[in-house]
């Protein structure tokens, strides 16, 4: 958020809004592709369209994408917890704890993950709204001006790249065969809409609370915002409660990443069960999370690499597959017509 404020300044919230709209548009080809192959995940679809060798390349890209994102999330949330809540704890223990929670979720299955996500949504959503609203005494509407921020061109360009913020909808393409009601288009657009709205409002609240120069200096603006909450003498320093609750979000994020990694591997290798891969994938994620040396590096990688280019595997590659499918279909149609004419 702080880095986004650095780029978008007072128009940072508009960037997220535009990014959500672009993500929604980019998701449509992906959804159309999956709808043409009911009962198949993006891995099987890729194999059918580009063959096993090219599909292997795609799978590697997807795996890197699906493993690096939860690794970064794991490290980020662990560092936040340490910073805010329990500084004396080693980061390895904090990450291991989160990983245990995530593995439990994955072990219980996709249904359990989906259901606990719904519960976590209530808790986390409530606390985010509460934390945003309770800083109302500090809101200054002049912080939003100039509304355009760095200008329309920057907003659009950043909006395209920041569509990576919505990379989570790619997960729908991986679990598509498991969806009870395979309405991937509606589900995906709904998720992008809700997520985009939540991030936009949070960004708006941050901009209202902090001036842009102050905001771009912060490494954990949500924590700083929750620190401002004052509910009288007996309810103070509630950030110690809020931030661990937000760690639930992090655990869910990591769990989804582990599940996606396992699902990609099992579907590519045509294996029947996910569970044997839970531990190896978790160990890989745990190891990847140790690569950045500190929280600043984590945030830099997250903002300048992952959340800048994640739209390529999340939206671009499925769109390319969709294009190939269209071309193949057209070729088949033309071939059929020419055969018919010859016949």
């Amino acid at each position, binding site marked *: 958020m702080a880095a986004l404020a650095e780029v978008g300044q007072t128009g940072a919230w508009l960037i997220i809004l535009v990014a959500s709209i672009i993500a929604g548009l980019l998701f449509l080809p992906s959804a159309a592709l999956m709808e043409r192959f009911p009962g198949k995940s993006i891995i099987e679809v890729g194999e059918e369209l580009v063959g096993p060798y090219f599909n292997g390349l795609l799978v590697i890209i997807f795996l890197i994408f699906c493993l690096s994102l939860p690794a970064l999330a794991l490290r980020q949330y662990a560092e936040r*917890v340490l910073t805010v*809540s*329990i500084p004396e*704890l080693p980061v390895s*223990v*904090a990450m291991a*704890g*989160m990983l*245990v*929670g995530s593995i*439990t*979720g994955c072990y*219980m*299955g996709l*249904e*359990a*993950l*989906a*259901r*606990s996500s*719904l*519960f*976590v949504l209530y808790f986390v959503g409530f606390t985010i709204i509460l934390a945003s609203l309770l800083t109302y005494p500090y809101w200054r509407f002049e912080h939003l001006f100039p509304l355009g921020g760095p200008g329309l061109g920057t907003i659009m360009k950043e909006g395209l790249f920041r569509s990576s913020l919505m990379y989570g909808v790619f997960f729908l393409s991986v679990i598509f065969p498991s969806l009870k009601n395979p309405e991937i288009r509606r589900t995906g657009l709904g998720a992008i809409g809700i997520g985009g709205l939540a991030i936009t409002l949070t960004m708006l609240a941050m901009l209202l609370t902090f001036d842009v120069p102050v905001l771009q200096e912060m490494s954990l603006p949500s924590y700083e915002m929750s620190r401002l909450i004052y509910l009288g*003498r*007996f309810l*103070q*320093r*509630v950030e*110690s*409660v809020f931030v*661990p*609750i937000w*760690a*639930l979000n992090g*655990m*869910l994020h990591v*769990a989804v990443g582990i599940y996606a990694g396992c699902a990609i591997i099992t579907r590519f290798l045509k294996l029947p069960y996910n569970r044997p891969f839970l531990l190896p994938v978790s160990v890989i994620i745990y190891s990847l999370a140790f690569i950045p040396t500190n929280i600043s590096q984590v945030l830099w990688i997250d903002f300048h690499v992952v959340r800048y280019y994640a739209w390529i595997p999340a939206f671009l590659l499925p769109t390319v597959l969709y294009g190939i499918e269209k071309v193949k279909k057209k070729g088949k149609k033309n071939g059929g017509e020419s055969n018919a004419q010859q016949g």
Partner: protein
Amino acid sequence: MHAQKGRPGLTGARLDACLGVSKWMSVWDNLSKIITFQPPQRKPFELLGTEAAPGKNQGGSQPGQSAAGKSAQKQAGQQEREEQPKKFIKPRRAIPISVWYRCTQDKRSCPGDHLGQAGQGGSREKKGDNKEKPAQAEGVTQDRDRNKDQGKNKICNSDHDRAGVGVQNGINNDHDEGKGVARSECGNIDIGELGRVSANLKKNLKCLKKTFHVPTNKDVIFREFTIGADPPVAAAVIYIDGMTDRILQNLSILEPLMLLAGLNVDRGETLLDTVIKRLLPGNQVDATDELRDVVDGVLMGSTAVLIDYCPKAIIVETKGWEHRQVGRPTNEIVIRGPQEGFTETLRVNTALIRKSLHSPNLVTEFFKIGRVNRLDCAVMYIAGLTNPQLLAEVKRRIQSVTADFISDSSVLEQFIEDSHFILVPQTLATERPDRVIAGLVEGQVAVLVDGNPYALLMPANFFAVFQNPEDAYVRWPFGSLLRLIRLFGLFLATFLPGLYIAVISHHHEMIPTDLLLAISASRENVPFPSIVEVLIMEVSFELIREASIRVPGPIGPTLGIVGALILGQAAVAANIVSPILIIIVAVTAIGSFAVSSYSLSLTARFLRFVNILLGAFLGIYGLMLGVFVYLNILAGTKSFGVPYLVPIAPQAKTGPDLLYRGPAWQQEQRPEYLQPGQPKRQPDISRGWLKKGGGRR
């Protein structure tokens, strides 16, 4: 030859007297045929009489005959028998001697058939339509049906058994065959299939004595007597002393049979018919040809009547053991609402439910569970309302349990629950009939077990377990408030000590300064770290709670006072624990008492200790880790295929009866997740008087 055997009354003089001179020649012919008759392949005579008329036996419940694949030998025997005369003596008028013949020979299956047709005679037919039957009849029948369905039961009523020869070896035969479902896998403690009732009383008694270990076993009584018919017939009653009503036995079994049996028997009526229809005034009389049914009936407090020459036994319901009267529920007390609780007697419990749920669609099915103790288990549901798949799954699980000993509904619960390592209860145990009725009306299935005052409702989910009948009996604002208070109590019981230790150990900044100073001052003289302090108090409290339950009644409150007040006060005075911790432990205990479900309360007690450790080592972050793990486990748990966190995750339609308890007239929808046959409880406008011109039905 066999026909002659053991019939002391069959003499030439008596026949002359009975039949008259005009029929002398035909009688002589018949007798000569009987005397010179040689059963094919040395089969017993009476068996041939039964098999000679297979068509007549269709109504009878003889699994052996209905089993697929009769042997070629039997077919050959049947052909030979068809050539033999079926009418041995054609009586001019019905006399006992002809009755015996029918009982034992060609009319072997008749008594059962007559029974089925003559339900008006007080006896009841063992067919599947009438579901509510006494356990000793219905449950056993279903057991047999189950065995037949599984297609691998070879009941040991081989030809020899049916003749009464192999009945004594019924147990061994069963084990030797090794194909039957009821085959014992752990020695001879399983009664399995004992074969059929023989026409030979002595052989029946010998077999049953062996089964009941008589004479070593002293409480099974074999009372042999003579039925005062003309001619007298030997008979015996079998029962277990102490389980039967003696007066009932004397007045309605022994006295009529011994003193009033000299009645004229109608033409075409067998002795068995006469006994059942005229001589046994009991309200539940069954006839069976299975020794296993006899044993089951006797074990359930019935009295078995065996008559010589009759290959069927009569089971008269004479239960009369001591049992607790219906009283107030002890663990689920409500202020408003019924004050009745279940007892240890199954039939009383089913009657308590039926007493308040006057629906012909309420069905009670009985099963036997436990191979050794053969406990009765009732499955209750409302036909047409309960999801048939749910019902089939419940029955499938119960019937598939093959444990030796199931003592209790809580033990049965462990056998049929979905996940064994989940802490939360997956069935709803209640001692309140009204709660069972509410569940049945929603579409749940109730399981009751004899000897246990708790019914199991299934499927269960978190919200059902968490609720209390009181919520529905008070007006809706108070019901909703009570639920919120209980939810808060559950939260306190689970998280308060963990939260306390997390804040004390890791998050001092959360505590207001004044309070922090007060806590610090109170802890200043305590030598232990806070986790040790908390564990000492929590373990002490659990000890007191456990001890106060186990000690004899009058000492319990004393122990509570001594433990809670004196020990707590002394511990504070001795600077072992801080006063604030006493408050924390007390509030936690009160919170756990507010949870109405004992199983859920145990879950909270268990998780409390986990949370204490998580809070002590990882602070609030640790508690959040715990919450995430519990949440995922709960989200992945199912009770009979229904997700445990339904209707919130996954979402499902239901009435306003979750955390918020809506008014009764708003409860229009049955829970969607139960997939009931009728989704609506009541129309959108259930208060007819609100309609214009309403108020009439």
